């Protein structure tokens, strides 16, 4: 099975429907399929072993994704925000590739690596001009997509997603051609992120018009929702926070078409989602939890559950606003302790997942354990009704004198202080305990920083004394990457200074 089947079916059933819009340019599904087939000619001629994209979102991402699939080589979008040296090292790992993007930069940093280089425009034009001649396309038994992990702790790993993983995900979550002709999905996540890829696949199979926004700003996002009558959108928490701020600061836009907003990719501050639910009372919000290695979403908290949590007097139902919801019907999830024992509801451990969409595979090795389970390295627990809560990366756990402390639990308590806007707990070295708790705090605008004793007392009053921070620093802001992921390693460095 080849992921190109998704585009072939859309082009077959809805040939004249507009499938993609980017900066005013529009393509129907039939045109997109023809261009993907045209791209096969370029890819085969170049003898490339990968198709790489070093560019913001554009039609080239869609053509490259499906063109590479038809040609039978992995599609590997790269993070153009990386430094030259890091990027050159990644390009070396996929040489020889057909690389689409900033030609001058690619030639400068990887000119001697044997790549075939195209600008976005030359690639799209050549794919459009080529006469598809192949009578046989790849059967799709291999790798469809290779994504380098962000490598916040070590060298980036090459996560691979097979055609079968991605098709399994789409067939399990999307009903074919279920979108109305007027439906439009606004895609603003970068093409090198798994959510940027799954958005293209899902919308294509649903027959939903994909509206690309290459560079996010809240104003541009709101404008595009209004202009294209966008019905669906996916954002990372940082983006939703900025959209909420813009709306509160009087930026106006007609958002009446916006039926559904999904979010994921990092922890959503409760304050932001509460405000968003209030500002957009007719929009359904969905929290999606997933990883690169699982082909995107494995659990979700749906629109009704959001509204129920917001309006409930029951603390257990209210708390679900911070949950990532229930596993998809097509995946299984288990919480296990360090010895591999499956834990009951309410107990925190590492999240394991399995299902057709779960790859758990890197180019170098598979991370799957017995029975096909993937250890996510995310820590979490499920409540009595099976709702999944995340408490951070398993690697972020603070081990104090043999006791495992979850940073999330400490941060949640700190954030109840009215003067604190953001908080991050990390391990700091301790002679006595091996590791102890250090916290970096951000003071809310217009408030005074609470003194250290007050912060310690707050934690002591709510949690066990082992959680009381040994070291406390105040920062102007916590470091986040462009996807809204908190860079804990940098916080650790700040605390070590």
């Amino acid at each position: 099975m080849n992921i190109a089947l998704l585009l072939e079916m859309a082009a077959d059933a809805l040939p004249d429907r507009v499938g993609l819009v980017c900066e005013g340019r529009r393509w129907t599904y039939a045109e997109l399929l023809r261009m993907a087939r045209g791209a096969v000619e370029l890819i085969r001629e170049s003898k490339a072993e990968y198709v790489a994209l070093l560019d913001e979102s554009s039609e080239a991402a869609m053509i490259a994704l499906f063109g590479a699939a038809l040609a039978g080589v992995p599609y590997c979008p790269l993070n153009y925000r990386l430094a030259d040296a890091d990027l050159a090292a990644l390009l070396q790992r996929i040489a020889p590739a057909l690389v689409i993007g900033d030609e001058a930069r690619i030639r400068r940093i990887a000119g001697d690596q044997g790549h075939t280089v195209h600008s976005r425009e030359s690639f799209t034009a050549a794919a459009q001009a080529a006469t598809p001649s192949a009578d046989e396309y790849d059967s799709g038994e291999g790798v469809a997509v290779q994504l380098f992990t962000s490598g916040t702790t070590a060298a980036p790993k090459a996560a691979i997603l097979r055609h079968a993983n991605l098709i399994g995900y789409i067939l399990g979550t999307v009903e074919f051609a279920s979108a109305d002709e007027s439906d439009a999905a606004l895609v603003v996540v970068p093409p090198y992120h798994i959510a940027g890829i799954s958005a293209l696949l899902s919308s294509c199979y649903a027959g939903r018009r994909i509206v690309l926004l290459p560079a996010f700003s809240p104003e541009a996002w709101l404008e595009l929702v209004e202009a294209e009558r966008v019905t669906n959108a996916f954002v990372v928490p940082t983006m939703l926070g900025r959209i909420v701020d813009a709306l509160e600061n009087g930026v106006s836009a007609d958002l009446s078409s916006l039926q559904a907003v999904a979010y994921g990719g990092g922890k959503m501050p409760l304050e932001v989602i509460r405000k968003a639910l209030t500002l957009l009372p007719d929009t359904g919000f969905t929290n999606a939890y997933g990883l690169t290695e699982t082909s995107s979403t494995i659990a979700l908290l749906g629109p009704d559950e959001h509204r129920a949590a917001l309006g409930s007097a029951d603390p257990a139902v209210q708390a679900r606003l911070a949950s990532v919801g229930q596993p998809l019907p097509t995946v299984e999830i288990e919480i296990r302790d360090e010895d591999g024992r499956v834990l009951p509801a309410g107990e925190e451990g590492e999240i394991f997942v399995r299902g057709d969409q779960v790859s758990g595979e890197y180019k170098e090795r598979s991370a799957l354990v017995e029975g096909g389970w993937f250890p996510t390295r995310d820590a979490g627990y499920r409540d009595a009704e099976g709702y999944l809560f995340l408490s951070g990366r398993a690697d972020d756990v603070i081990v104090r004198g043999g006791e495992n402390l979850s940073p999330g639990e400490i941060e949640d308590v700190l954030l109840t202080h009215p003067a604190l806007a953001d908080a991050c707990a990390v391990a700091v070295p301790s002679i006595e305990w091996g590791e102890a708790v250090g916290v970096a705090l951000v003071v809310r605008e217009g408030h005074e920083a609470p003194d250290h004793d007050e912060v310690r007392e707050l934690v002591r009053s709510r949690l066990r004394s082992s959680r009381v921070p040994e070291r406390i620093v105040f920062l102007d802001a916590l470091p986040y990457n462009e996807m809204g992921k908190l860079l804990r390693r940098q916080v650790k460095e700040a605390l070590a200074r």
Partner: protein
Amino acid sequence: MKPGTRLKSAACDSEVMVIRSGGGTIECGGAPMAEAKPTEAAPLSPDFSGGSLMGKRYVDAEGKYELLCVKAGKGSLSVDGVALVVKDAKPLPASD
């Protein structure tokens, strides 16, 4: 039958992609399906003429077989003479 195999109906326009399968004979319109279309079309059996719908997944009662219809046709799908049914999928909110 290997997952990913594309099968064509001998009796109508239907085409399926195999997602899961056992050792039985996959049929459409009452006639065995194959990777290539036969030169002479098979007659459409009245017992298997309900039609197949594009984008629907068809399964047997034991969950051994799952076929994705990639092209609709007049014949309906069966395995060894037993009709397959459309797989019920609970609609999920769009998450990406």
